[in-house]
Every structure is written in structure tokens, then in C-alpha cells.
């Protein structure tokens, strides 16, 4: 297991070298997405704002809805930026990747089968950031650079500039390696044995 320091957006080589179990520290731009904005985009068919679409090509998406404070000039100051559970947004993974070019999802808890398959097909990967650790994550967000669909507050689409972002765990890699699945397979065996001995 190796540790990588990477600059977003990532190159094909960056992604391809990562193996499940590796860790990453990230600098650069990441985009915050989650339930309400992805439902609007994919289920209600509302197209993304024009200026956002090209920025998502090759981008890293974070499953989040931050706590923020709106300043008088209309910009936002961070209050608490943390990560939400990913399975709820699983079925939007493929669309984000093949329609908009997103390459990496950062979330917590992992993806379901459909999302994992999309990662393999689109040669992307999934980084785990530790849930509940927003205090740490917030200190690694340098600035909220932009926001779209503010009417969905706090479930708008956010553009963050991050520095020393992590520790991120490569829990699902672009080759089908999946730490969560490995742990669950082992845990299933343990559980069956525990239940047999009750």
C-alpha cells in the first residue's frame, strides 16, 4: 500500500496507478454534489449551468452539503464542510462519469454494485474520506470558489479549493479492487460462524 500526493484534476496515469488500500493527499479543485442537485439533473432533466459543464470534465466530485455563511458580497464562507453517505447517490455515478467526465468520487461508505461497475467501465475511482470528520476536512478547504443552484441550499453544487485534503483512502480502484467488498466478504464468514455458535 502506497501513499500518493496528487494535484486535482487527476491524469489517467494518476488514476490507473492507484490500488485499493492506497492513501492519497489531494490539492486543487473539487466539486460538491449530492441528493437534491443530482435528482434535479438526472431525474428532472434540468441541464447544468453552461459555465459548470466544461469544468466537470476530468473533475473530482465530493458527496457533500456544507454548512456555510453567506457574506454581504454574495460569496460564501465555510462553516463546516464534511462528507455524506454515498450509496444514496449511487445510481448517478455513471451519468456523472460518462456524460460529464467526472473521474473520481470522494464520499463515505462506498458505492453499490451499479456505481462500482461504472467506475470500472469509465476508469475512475472512489476515495473514502472519514465520515464525521468535518472539523478536519473544513481546515483543509481553502476557499469556496463558486456555487450553482443556490435555491437548493444547502444542497447546491459547490466548487472548493482544497489543500492537504485527506487522508483519503482509495477504497475502490479503477481495476475493480474494492476494500469495502473485501471487508464485507470476510465479515460475512465471521458472522455466519458467530450465528452458528449462538
Amino acid at each position: 500500500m502506497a501513499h500518493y500526493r496528487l494535484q486535482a484534476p487527476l491524469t489517467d496515469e494518476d488514476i490507473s496507478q492507484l490500488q485499493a488500500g492506497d492513501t492519497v493527499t489531494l490539492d486543487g479543485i473539487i466539486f460538491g454534489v449530492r441528493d437534491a442537485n443530482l435528482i434535479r439533473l438526472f431525474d428532472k432533466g434540468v441541464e447544468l449551468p453552461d459555465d459548470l459543464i466544461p469544468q466537470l470534465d476530468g473533475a473530482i466530485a465530493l458527496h457533500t452539503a456544507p454548512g456555510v455563511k453567506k457574506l454581504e458580497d454574495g460569496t460564501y464562507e465555510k462553516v463546516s464542510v464534511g462528507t455524506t453517505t454515498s450509496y444514496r447517490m449511487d445510481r448517478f455515478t455513471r451519468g456523472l462519469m460518462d456524460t460529464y467526465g467526472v473521474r473520481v468520487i470522494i464520499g463515505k461508505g462506498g458505492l453499490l454494485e451499479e456505481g462500482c461497475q461504472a467506475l470500472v467501465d469509465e476508469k475512475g475511482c472512489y476515495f473514502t474520506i472519514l465520515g464525521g470528520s468535518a472539523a478536519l476536512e473544513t481546515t483543509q478547504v481553502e476557499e469556496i470558489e463558486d456555487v450553482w443552484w443556490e435555491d437548493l441550499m444547502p444542497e447546491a453544487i459547490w466548487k472548493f479549493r482544497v489543500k492537504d485534503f485527506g487522508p483519503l483512502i482509495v477504497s475502490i480502484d479503477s481495476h475493480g479492487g474494492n476494500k469495502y467488498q473485501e471487508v464485507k466478504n470476510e465479515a460475512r464468514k465471521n458472522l455466519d460462524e458467530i450465528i452458528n455458535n449462538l
Partner: protein
Amino acid sequence: MSTPAKNLEVWHADDSFYKHVEEACKTLYIESLKDLPPDVRTALEKAYENEELESGKEILETLIKTVSTADDEKLLICQDTGIPVYFVKIGNQVRLDGLRLEEAVRKGTERATLEHPLRSSIVNTLSRKNHGTSTGNQVPVMHYEFVPGNEVELLIVPKGSGSENMSYMTMLTPAAGIEGIKKYVLECVFESGANPCPPTIVGIGIGGSADKCAALAKKAAAREVASPNPDPEVRKLEEELYEKINEIGIGAHGLGGSTTALAVQIEAADTHMTMNPVAVNMMCWPARRMRAVFDSNEAPAITY
């Protein structure tokens, strides 16, 4: 059965009481999101000491670092401000207006959200519209209990959705017995995997009716870590399930190891002869809670 308190002065809540309740609820909501109770900190440190898997140990180290970062920088531990749940205990020597109490709780919660500001996580269930106040129809969620004594206690549990979405309830048969209860709880913890942000406090309700059982599970999850149930039979079940849950191997954040639960806590009620209800409600590792205790119309004591 509890005996009503004796030799205690009955006191009547006046205007200043409701004002203090509002102020206290503002403080409780904000501070509970920033300051993890000492028993949870101790449990995390103990888990760190005991974890043998290197990657699991590193995860626990990051969680502990998160808590100290929140302390140092006065930040929220987790961005999820949760659904505000209150457990209210009202002493039988206190006379108060329940509607005014609820209104003060709601106002304090709203003020915390607008004045700090905090992320409002509360939406209309059908329209999904966010009210921006952390309050709404029947939110905060209120639980009341009447106890002997002359105190009013407000315990806030800002319940994160990662763990709340991993809630379970079933009506087992009497023939499934205690073994059925154990099996069900173990399967729930396994199925939840990484989602509730383990290591969790696993709250379990047994008995009652379906609604009572679900409420007991939440009450159990909101208990202090290392506060075993006084009933020896229930306590035995807590100890056995704690051991077995940590043998499953889900581990901190579902990435393996022996730290799946910080504690297993059970609340039990009696039930119908044909029923064997069991509910599971987990508290994520930042098991946030804070309480205000009033014994007069003066400002309350704030504790964990």
C-alpha cells in the same frame, strides 16, 4: 416502579424559565455539535489502544484528531447538524406549561441555526423544501418522561442521518426467543457496514409495542457510554452482543478491524405474549449529546 419524591418544594415555572429554556436550547444545539462528551472520547481512545489492524488504528487516530481539531478551532465535529431530538424529563414537583416549553425549545433551535449559522437539514418530506431553521412539522422530535424530583432535564441528541438511515425494527416471534434477537441485531450491524460511521453506539430496544420499541432503541443509543442497564439479564445481553459485534470485522468506517461498536446499550419494556419486538438505532462515532438541568427558574446547569 419509582416512588414519587418527597420533601421537595413544588416550584412553578415562570416567564424567566421559558427564556432560559430558549437560551439553553440554542447553546445545547451549537455546543453539542462541537464538544464530544467525555465518555465518548474515552471510548474512542480505548478503541485506539485495542485495535490491532494497522489501517484501523490509523482511522481511529484521525477520528481522535478530528475531535481535538474541533476543540482547538471551535469547529463542528461533523457537518451533519442532524435531526434535533430532545429527551425531556420532568420532575413531578415541577409545574409548567408544556406548550410554552415546546415553543421555547423550537425557538432556541431556530436561533442556533440562524445566529451561528448552522446548516439546516430539515425539509418537508414530500416537497423536500428546506425550511432553513432546523425545525418543521413535529421537528424537533420530542420525547417526554415524568420522573420523581424537582428538576427539568432537556437532553439534545442532534441525530446524524448516516446512522439514523441505518435504523431497523422487526416483530420477531416468541419462538425466535433471545437467540432471534441476537441474530437480528448482528445482521443489522453487518448490513449497515460503513454507512453509520462506525465505531457506533448500538442502541437496541426490546419489547413494548412497535412504536415503543423504536423509541427505546433511540433512548438506549443516547445513553452515556459505559452506563450498563441495571437489569442483570439485559446487561448480560449487552455484554454478549458487544463482544460478538466486534468479532464481525466490519471495523472503523467499514474498512476492517475489531472496532465496530464503542458500546452496545439496551432498553427493555415488557410486551404482549405473542410478540417479540426488537429495534436497532445506532449513534455514529461522534455520538453527540448535551443536556441542560433546571431546578428552579434560574439558568440551568449544562452538562453532557
